[in-house]
């Protein structure tokens, strides 16, 4: 059985936010909702200072905290390793958003137009975007990255992987030891974020240095 996972090479990443915006194009997320984002971490004292861009998304944990706290069963672990939210079952209690140690979950009480902040779309594209968002994720519920299910089903890469100018992202089957992701994790000593939480994340990071 396939277990989808992603490897992000911090040596290649420049923190350009292409992933953040590619996700918006693909999933029509409204203002304030970022399924993909980039944070910057700085350590050290001038002049020996290290700054690292770290792209974040849902880690699709094998042991997801969000799933454990979900009172309705809307959050599900899929057989292919993805963690999903069924918007029909979600009641928007946001326990999951609190439980997720990676801050990967977003809540939007309502759809809003990017330009006007109104519920009324300001353009034909905003109208299209609103329709898609309500179909895919809906208002008043929690949403997050689903590893671009609709693209992966068609044999494509997730939108963030596809767009990345530095080609820092690799998507594939973690259960296949020969897959590119498995090989990268092995050869480059891929790390999960906060392994101490025991979440067994499906997103791995390759060290920059």
């Amino acid at each position: 059985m396939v277990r989808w996972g992603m490897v992000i090479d911090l040596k290649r990443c420049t923190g350009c936010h292409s992933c953040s915006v590619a996700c918006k194009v693909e999933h029509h997320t409204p203002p304030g909702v970022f399924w993909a984002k980039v944070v910057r971490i700085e350590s050290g004292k001038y002049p020996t200072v290290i700054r690292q861009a770290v792209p974040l998304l849902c880690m699709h944990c094998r042991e997801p905290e969000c799933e454990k706290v979900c009172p309705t069963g809307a959050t599900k672990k899929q057989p292919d390793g993805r963690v999903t939210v069924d918007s029909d079952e979600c009641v928007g209690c946001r326990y999951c958003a609190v439980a997720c140690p990676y801050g990967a979950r977003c809540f939007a009480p309502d759809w809003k137009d990017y330009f006007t902040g109104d519920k009324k779309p300001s353009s034909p594209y905003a109208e299209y975007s609103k329709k898609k968002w309500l179909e895919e994720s809906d208002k008043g519920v929690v949403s997050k990255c689903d590893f671009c299910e609709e693209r992966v089903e068609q044999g494509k890469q997730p939108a963030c992987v596809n767009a990345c100018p530095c080609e820092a992202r690799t998507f594939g089957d973690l259960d296949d030891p020969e897959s590119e992701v498995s090989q990268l994790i092995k050869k480059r000593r891929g790390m999960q974020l906060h392994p101490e939480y025991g979440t067994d994340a499906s997103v791995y990071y390759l060290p920059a240095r």
Partner: protein
Amino acid sequence: MVTTSCGMCYGTCTVNVRVEDGVVVGIEGVPDSPQGYGNICAKGLSSLMMLYDPSRLNYPLLRTNPEKGIGVDPGWKRISWNEAMDLLTSKLGECLKKDPRGLYTVGSPTFPAERAFNVLCFRKAFGTPNYYTGGGGLHCGNGAHMIGGIYHASWSVIPDFKYCNMAIYWGCSKGHGAGHAANVAAKQAADAKARGMRLIVFDPFLSTQASTAEEWVPIKAGTDAAAALAMANLLLSEYSAYDKEYIKWKTNGPYLVAPDGLYRRDKKSGVPLVWNIIDKKVEPFNSENVKDCALEGEFDVDGTKCTPSFQLLRNHLKKYTPEHASEICGVSASTLRRIAKDFGEEARIGSTISIDGKTLPYRPVASIYFRGSQGHYNQAWDCMSLVLLNHLVGSADVPGGALAFGPPVHLGYPGTGRLKYSVEPDKDGLLVAKNWPYAHLPYPPPEPKDPPERLDLQDMFYIPTYTTIMAWDNNEELWQKFKIPYRPDVMISFATNQIMSVGNPKTLMKNFLQKFGFIASFNIYSTEFEESAADLVLPDACYLERYSSATTFPTVGVSCHGTGLGEWIWAIRQPVIKPMYERRPMIDVILELSERLGLRDRYIEAAREWVNRAYGGDLDFKKVLDPKEKLNFERMLDIIMKDRFGPDKGLDYFKEHGYLKWDKRVEEVYWRAFNDVRVPVYLEWIIRAGRKSRAIAEKYGVPDLVDWSAHNALPEWRPCPTHTEKNPEYDLEAFYWRSALHTYSMTMQNPWLNEVSQNDPYTYTIQLNTETANRKGVKEGDLVWLENSKGSKAKGRVHITDGIRPDHVAIAANAGHWSKGMPIAKDKGVFFNELIEIDKEHTCPVSLGQDICVKVKLYKDGGDRSG
């Protein structure tokens, strides 16, 4: 799905745009295209938000408030296109009758091909010499392009990412998400770092490139040349790490210079002489007898003691000891020594590599500069000093070295042999670019105009891309003295926000923009420029709604290809949907205006001249177009493409495929080894050209127009005005940087880019060192003022970081908008340009580019002065 070229920056990646039921709903890269490899950045992805922005200009607008000025409400009134065209025709017609030179044309560098047809060709047809790059404005690279042109026949240089092992970046971001061939370079730079290329970044702050580099060297702003000249001195004098063969045959290093500083020339042929070591006599540099020549020594030429120019350089550099440089630039002498030594060793002088059966010099080091290192008073010599490192070790346009953008040699599209151009030597053997986006080549220097004809006096100098002299306080006095008989009359602007991007907005408004009788602006938003200064605003089509002839040619200019071997690509821009509302592509308006003004034939002639210079060849529109045929841009594109690629590859082919690609050749990419051209380690011609310009200035009673002592042959470090600021109250050096999330000011109105900028700690803030912040009692997020010694101020929120020198503050460019027409951009970030001046003291005397660093004091908002 429509294939076109992204227009969100000048990287011009090929994109597939998805249209459903007439609505643009998606955008992706095209993996098959060498322009992007299918990758796409945040800006490109945000195109959709630009297309559908409700703040876009949709109708022609006329100013009803006769008062102009920053912060003045223009009182826009919607008018019809018919009214707008009648008004434009009458204003331009009057100007044409009075004195066509009164027309000032302005264009954005983000769209070089559009700019060519919209602005440059129209300017020529109209008969005005006046043009400036108002969109790029102070970001534009006078010094950078001048030096790129002289040494590489190109706009700039970039590491040969495939083979380079050690790159030094001086205030530039190549391969880190912004600028020329942005996404291609991002992938190539990532590949290079993964391969093990060492990147060393000299920059006052921990930029993106510095944070991903092996080493960040925090250098004081504007002092790169001091560091580089010390490194050059070390390479020559201490480490003996210079490529003698390269200097002998690829530079003017052996040319003999007389005590007057000029070449000693052969009496018969007039070309410079060298000392033939074998026959022990002087000979023309290009004599076949010269099998070896002297780089050092002193030689008697008809009783005059002459010295090879390389020897002069070497002697000259001796004063740039690393210890001396360290005092100027704030980098330790030991660091300069270590990096210079590594650079010399890594250059592997004498080694070769075989690529595609061709044996070439292998020099895997590159000294790379761009915007940061050229934003200074001394920018021409700063850039020369940085590029000189490559030319000492022979790492210019050979595998592993610093490669020209472009490259500037194309041996022809294989199907037709056309689209062909190369470099060539002038009679002194020096490199001449043949494929160049502007009429004046970087070398040889054109004859200066006596008296100058342009309002910015550019034509009495020998090099500048453009100048901002027309906005100096004493411009009227200068125009009178130089007997310029006309004054600013009408301006036509394409996609610029001059108020935000040229320099100090108040100075520009008062000294320049207020002087125009009529300003028409084609733009997609009503920016600060339109609100402050425009009389008529025309709703331009954005890049998704219009055509462009080619986004990747001319290759050496603003647009360029990815570096190294790979593929050439001719890509067009085409409308993915019809222009919405009453938006019109500016080119359609310009062609109609040309007809209305009776300039049709002159426009065609100007287009012929530009197309052939930029794209090579000898196309003549007149031979193809029926004399009675109304000008139509699509028709012109079809003619250009068929002429270049054959009858089956006209516009229809490109509309279907978006682009055409073919393989690059070793002889093109690594052109230097295949072309008998030299570059100057001693800029002898600048002495001669500078004297000519000076003589004109003296003749018209302006002997001190600029500091003529900088018009010399050898590189110097000269301080910026901020380096000599005496008042200790102004204790912080403020400089701007360009965020990869934005292209000038245009993208600040994009809500997606705005949102990621808000999530980013740097784009909208003033970066201040932790220790400095503690000393001044400033906390994260505090609202502070930066104030210069003339009382100009800028306000912003502080981001405290250890990633900046304690004596510097960094601000991302082009933020801090206030126009009503850009509500998303309004009040976001800090407006740096308030702090800088447009005057002689802040103008490079050689390249005429602007110095844009400034000393400031910092204090908290609310009068709580703690600085």
